[in-house]
């Protein structure tokens, strides 16, 4: 029966090519706009390490100005911590892994004829790679012993290794970082968590850093945070030692706590430290010590901006408009073919069969619309890509690959198109099926 219905549908399309094209276009546009918007939204709202959502926590403590919260109206501590607080928390053996880190400026030189160039560098404790599950192409990270006193070892991103060493296994090779001799110990494989949850400063979709050096170099070479150095307390800051002892926040801390019990223990460890420090005159704001999992961290830092939610709403309003349009056109089309339907009914077709036949026609439209819609969405995403790439030209990171069109997106779009168009087409099909055949068998 189905092939016959399909043939009928094709014949019907052939009779009204204009209206058919209009309907396919309406479905396609609605689907394209929805898929584009959802793809972008999905990319922005994803949790790139969801499987560790109940283990991985950002550590924050509110050491800020008692008179002015850092974020007026939002009850959140600063996203970074002071050096001294992270040093104390690092002494705890409760977390399975613990990372204190910050991004800094570095210039790499001394590799062959390659001219010196700035390389975004992260100063971090050794657990970074294991904790955030960073894949290695060659070699590996350093052990905790290399953090302090710091060993002159460096891990490069794949991009940087391609640039400096033409992609060869560079483990053991020497280079100069800020004019100090370092030895390559590992090269990362392609790795780009989006959003870059572990450091959201300067844009949530930045590329990860291109070089990583042991944490102890931060103090040894007096390295500052490249993006965030926030101070509030009027205190003496006459040298780097003063800065380390200050209430300035610039260090990022994450811990991996394998279960609820360890989480509670670490929380009370933090709270105990907080209470002690408070007695000594620090932490003048109400207690606001947090262990925040990745999902909440992304929400607190407003990674999905409000514009995007508005756009999702708009996309669905547009889809609704397109579908209503399609329903209207389908109804008109089915009504104008009602005489034929009447004859088929009179010759013994049941209401169910008529309904099914018309639904097959709707489904064929949906498939056409969805395919065209996917094509349009791909075009649209390419356009978005060009806009962002043009704007970011020369800038690290950005939206380039954010917009790629994944298989999941395609399946989604097809399902969406089929379900909504069928649902929308069911009404006109049902109405025509219910018409009394006699009316349409009379001459007009």
């Amino acid at each position: 029966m189905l092939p016959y219905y399909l043939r009928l549908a094709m014949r019907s399309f052939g009779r009204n090519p204009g209206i058919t094209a209009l309907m396919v276009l309406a479905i396609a546009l609605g689907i394209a706009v929805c898929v584009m918007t959802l793809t972008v939204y999905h990319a922005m709202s994803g949790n790139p390490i969801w499987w560790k959502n109940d283990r991985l926590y950002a550590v924050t403590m509110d050491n800020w100005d008692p008179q002015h919260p850092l974020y007026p109206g939002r009850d959140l501590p600063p996203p970074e911590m002071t050096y001294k607080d992270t040093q104390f928390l690092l002494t705890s053996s409760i977390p399975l892994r613990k990372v204190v880190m910050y991004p800094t400026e570095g210039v790499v030189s001394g590799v062959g004829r390659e001219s010196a160039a700035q390389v975004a560098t992260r100063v971090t404790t050794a657990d970074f790679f294991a904790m955030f599950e960073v894949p290695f192409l060659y070699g590996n990270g350093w052990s905790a012993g290399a953090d302090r006193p710091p060993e002159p070892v460096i891990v490069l991103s794949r991009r940087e290794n391609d640039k400096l060493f033409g992609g060869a296994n560079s483990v053991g090779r020497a280079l100069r970082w800020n004019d100090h001799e370092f030895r390559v110990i590992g090269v990362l494989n392609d790795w780009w968590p989006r959003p870059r949850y572990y450091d959201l400063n300067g844009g949530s979709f930045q590329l990860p850093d291109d070089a990583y050096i042991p944490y102890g170099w931060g103090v040894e070479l007096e390295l500052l945070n490249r993006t965030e150095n926030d101070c509030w307390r009027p205190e003496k800051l006459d040298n780097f030692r003063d800065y380390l002892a200050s209430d300035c926040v610039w260090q990022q801390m994450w811990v991996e706590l394998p279960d609820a019990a360890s989480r509670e223990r670490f929380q009370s460890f933090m709270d105990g430290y907080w209470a002690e420090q408070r007695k000594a005159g620090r932490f003048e704001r109400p207690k606001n010590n947090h262990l925040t999992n990745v999902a909440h961290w992304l929400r607190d830092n407003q990674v999905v901006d409000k514009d995007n939610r508005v756009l999702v709403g708009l996309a669905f309003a547009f889809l609704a408009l397109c579908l209503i349009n399609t329903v209207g056109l389908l109804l008109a089309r089915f009504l104008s073919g009602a005489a034929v339907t009447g004859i088929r009914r009179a010759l013994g077709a049941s209401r169910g069969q008529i309904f099914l036949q018309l639904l097959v026609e709707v489904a064929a439209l949906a498939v056409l619309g969805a395919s065209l819609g996917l094509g349009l969405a791909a075009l649209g995403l390419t356009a978005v890509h060009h806009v962002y790439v043009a704007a970011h030209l020369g800038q690290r990171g950005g939206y380039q690959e954010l917009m790629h069109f994944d298989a999941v997106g395609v399946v989604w779009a097809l399902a969406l198109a089929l379900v909504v168009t069928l649902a929308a087409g069911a009404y006109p099909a049902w109405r025509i099926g219910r018409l009394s055949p006699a009316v349409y068998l009379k001459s007009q």
Partner: protein
Amino acid sequence: MSLSVRPILLALLRNRTGAVLVAAQVAIALAVLTNAAYIIVQRIERIHRPTGIDEQNIFVIESAGFTGRFRQTASVREDLTYLRGLSGVIAATATNSIPLSEGGNNDTLVTRPDAPRTGYINDMEIDEHGLDALGAHLVAGRNFRADEIQPALTKADISRFVPTIIVSRALGEHLFPHESPLGRQVWDASGHPATIVGVVDPIMGNFPGSEHPDWVYFLPRMPQEFIVVRYLVRTQPGERAALMRVVEAHLAASNPDRVINFVRPLSYFKNLSYLDDSSMEMYLLTVTMLVVAVTSLGIFALATFNVSIRTKQIGTRRALGARRRDIVHYFLIENGLITGAGVVSGCALALAAGYWLSTHYALPRLELYYLVGGVLALCGLGQLAAWQPARRAAAVPPAVATRTV
């Protein structure tokens, strides 16, 4: 007009579904159109707020020393001498931060040495050529003098302040409401005083996205020694691109102890800061145009369908004496009724959407004249879309009435 609305309305009510669907489209279209237009206009206004900066003729250089031999003060002096000596350069300054880039310094500034801190205010380090390099206009007081420019902060004296500052007019009004800020003293977080010697207006600082982007003050100081140095170079109109190439080639080779991270037009940083706004604008514009197109096509298709199934009826009316004009009027009035019903419900929908946007997304409440504009636009659009089918209907010859189908 020989036709009254009543029979048209009655005919419509007997065959509602198609009309209801078109009215629903018009309603959604109105809601989308008005709110989108409102948001677009707000974004455009935001992007085009006056900055007081000669954005089109400035480029930015970032230089980073990386060896123990690097001497920042000497390097900056040498670079500035080179830049100022180029023909086509109006002015150049060294600075710690890039205007309009969403990156820079905020510090405390209060009007009494013992006053409680009141949030953070954007500041920029420039020299005596700084205002000129920005293209900023001094509206009161004087510019910095060359002998006033302080040496760069080093890691050994991070909390040093300056004796004089220049403020934006907006900041001056914030600090000293209803008084001239000229000659007044202000204090930094550590209680060091400075005197306000000049007022600039209009001016936008480093943070276009902040609550008060025009609260900014300038410090007469060489840029901090432990951060990369930026130069702002303002050129004669039309010479920026050529100068950028020359400058990049020269500076990259002039000192082996530093690297030039980039040489970029200032507009690059402004565009990045407003990327969300401009992409939102573009997206809304595209979807709004699609909404209008789809709705017009829907109206057009329904009218065409109505005409085609009523051929015989139209022929009969023509045979009974209706003029072509009457037929056209019939379909236009019918369309007006449908669109009218659509815009009435659309107004409610638009206001509801506007309310939702204003409560959930802190957008200002929809201005009513957008709604009026939207209603007029959609009614006009409806008539336009129904025009061609109505003309086709009018062309039906009266003889059709006498034929059997």
